[in-house]
């Protein structure tokens, strides 16, 4: 039983924290957010150079073969410094979705690792977060398939070069059988990308597909398992991001209550303030312990689905509560754009929505533990 990172994982973690404090210094945050395209491209190239983008790719596919724990070590730093670079959406998730997918996939994995391509996953539709509840249809057309339908909430999809689109090759919405996965290039005929920004400065999109050519990934009709397994990887990575962010928000709050003077004394000397900070730190501990156990269980290859669903619920609850209290204890200034705690709150709220919110995963947990 070992909770600490090993040396190699610790190095990854330190590297991510260092990168974050260089590139995402809280004082320069608004400037960073303003330089969308250029800054993002420069940082992505740096991440490739650091080897982060090769990390979650299997060694057989030319990557470094890092597991969920190695990814956690990086993503904690992403959360701590609120990097908007979509490491989870453009690297961890697509790498898991296309691994062993045949055809184009090997070449694309190599390109992901080199930072040459960004792939976003279009897995859900208007009806909600269940990967089986999809109506987009794919019809065979010679070697390819023709996709028609609409995908919603493509995480970090606004600037992607390719989309991994789930579509039905048989059956009806709600059935796990008949779900297939396809690669669609950004400029494909019949594809409309509706881009939008969320309040945490992540850039997402919806997709409209009318008779769009798609390249199949993996076995036709059997992608639900592949998608769920990949989403588990993405979700536990997001948990680590939330934990990193929560801990940073608590640290900022502790600094603030120790120095902010009111009534002639630091506000941290007031018991009512102390107990709130204590509750924040307990929430951090809950979220961290649960994230570590879920990540470790996923890494060991055991059935982690109910644990991951539970962790998704609880980490979101703890994360949002912590960030809300961080804003509260900073007082008026906590609501300002200038202070980092307001950014932590916005990211926590959006992380809850990524790949299924609290209600969705609570219901899923209840089903899995029936």
């Amino acid at each position, binding site marked *: *039983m070992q909770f*600490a990172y090993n040396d190699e994982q610790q190095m990854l973690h330190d590297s991510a924290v260092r990168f974050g404090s260089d590139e995402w210094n809280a004082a320069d945050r608004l400037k960073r957010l303003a330089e969308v395209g250029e800054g993002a491209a420069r940082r992505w190239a740096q991440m490739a150079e650091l080897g982060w983008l090769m990390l979650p790719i299997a060694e057989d596919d030319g990557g470094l073969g890092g597991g969920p724990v190695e990814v956690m070590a990086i993503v904690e730093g992403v959360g701590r410094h609120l990097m908007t670079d979509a490491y989870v959406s453009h690297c961890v998730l697509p790498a898991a979705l296309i691994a062993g997918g045949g055809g184009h996939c090997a070449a694309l994995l190599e390109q992901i690792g080199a930072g040459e391509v960004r792939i976003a996953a279009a897995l859900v539709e208007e009806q909600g977060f269940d990967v089986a509840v999809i109506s987009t249809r794919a019809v065979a057309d010679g070697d390819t398939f023709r996709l028609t339908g609409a995908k919603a909430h493509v995480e970090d999809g606004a600037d992607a070069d390719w989309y991994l689109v789930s579509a039905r090759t048989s059956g009806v919405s709600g059935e796990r059988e008949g779900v297939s996965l396809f690669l669609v290039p950004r400029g494909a005929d019949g594809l409309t990308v509706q881009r939008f920004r969320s309040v945490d400065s992540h850039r997402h999109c919806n997709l409209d597909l009318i008779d769009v050519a798609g390249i199949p990934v993996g076995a036709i009709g059997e992608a639900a398992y592949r998608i769920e397994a990949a989403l588990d990887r993405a979700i536990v990575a997001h948990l680590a991001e939330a934990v990193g962010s929560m801990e940073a928000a608590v640290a900022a709050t502790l600094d603030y*209550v*120790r120095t902010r003077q009111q009534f002639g004394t630091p506000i941290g000397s007031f018991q009512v303030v102390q107990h709130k900070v204590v509750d924040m730190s307990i929430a951090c501990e809950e979220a961290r312990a649960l994230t570590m*156990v879920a990540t470790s269980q996923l890494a060991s290859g055991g059935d982690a689905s109910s644990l991951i669903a539970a962790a998704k*619920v609880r980490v979101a609850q703890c994360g949002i509560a912590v960030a809300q209290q961080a804003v509260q204890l900073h007082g008026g200034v906590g609501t300002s754009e200038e202070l980092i705690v307001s950014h932590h709150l916005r990211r926590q709220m959006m992380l809850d929505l990524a790949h299924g919110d609290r209600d969705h995963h*609570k*219901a899923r947990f209840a089903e899995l533990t029936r």
Partner: protein
Amino acid sequence: MNLDLAPEDREFQQEVRDFFANSIPEEWKKTVRAGLRLSPENLVAYQRRLADRGWGAPTWPKEYGGTGWSPQQLHIFWSEASAADAPAQFHQGLELIGPIIFTYGSQVQKDFYLPRIISGEDWWCQGYSEPGAGSDLAALRTRAARDGDDYVVNGHKMWTSYAHVADRMFILARTSTEGRRQQGISLMLVDMDTPGIRISPIHTLDEKHHTNEVFLDDVRIPAANVVGEEGMGWNYGKVLLDRERMVAAATAMFLPQTLRAVREAATRRRTAQGSLIDKPEFKARLAQIEIEAMAVQAMVLRLLADAASGADSGPRGSMVKLRWSELTQQATALWVEALGPKAQHFAALDDESVLPDDMPFALKGALYARVTTIYGGSSEIQRNIIARRALGL
């Protein structure tokens, strides 16, 4: 980071599982799941069975008759005990005074008292709180005056749980009024048969007799029964701070027992729309508590990993105590809710058969649970401790 069980841990797990298999009488289970203590006779019988197996003191080092188990083994033992609906061992001898005796006691005290704790021969109670000294324990006023080879003790102890059952009591008494309040307090071991001790029950809201007032009038305690040095009693409590994380961990491991009871009660409960367990609102509320219980279990694992690696776990013991106590309150309350109107059937006026399944255990459990956020350092005190020790506020 690696939480997998090693092969030798798997073997141990099987050994413990075999020990517990079908060993817990059906009539114990409802009491256990309600977080209530079994009758003293049953708890002593359970302690004897563990002692016969060599497992009487799971958290003690081998040299004092303990198992010397690693934190990983303790986790396995408690998990299996919890899954089998086994009760938690009574802790006042095993976890409170035992470790103080083996850390600070004389050789004579160790040789005499420790084996009797493990065998279940001695039941200990804790004489700490007083009417004017609860959370502020250093305000205690019980006096111990030296008289030859004895101390003569006078005072009034409150909330002395199981004093009515106990063979022995450990007390904190003031041997000096000089210096800081924490100085001049001594820790003494008292035989409950000593003349001058009077026990008066405190009736509590759950109508179960757990706790008492204890009056000490000119009680003569041999000076040899002082643990460690006179006037140093306050400091000896510190050994418990480190061990409390184990008590908190062990207690929290038993939370799933209550949740199983909630699930079963909700499955049995018929409503106009079918079984209660299938109603979405109820499902969501049960899932919420189960999820939070999983978070506490994860915290326990991390706490034990700290203990295994010799790391300071900082405030995590207090955190587990806080979260566990809140959850045991919520879980027992949900159990009562799952019973619906049947929760009114608290006591039969004529024929016992009027009482439905789970009653009165569920309701007693829910009421008893109110004390869990008060005893052993109230939630408010725990938050003060975390703020001061961990956050430096």
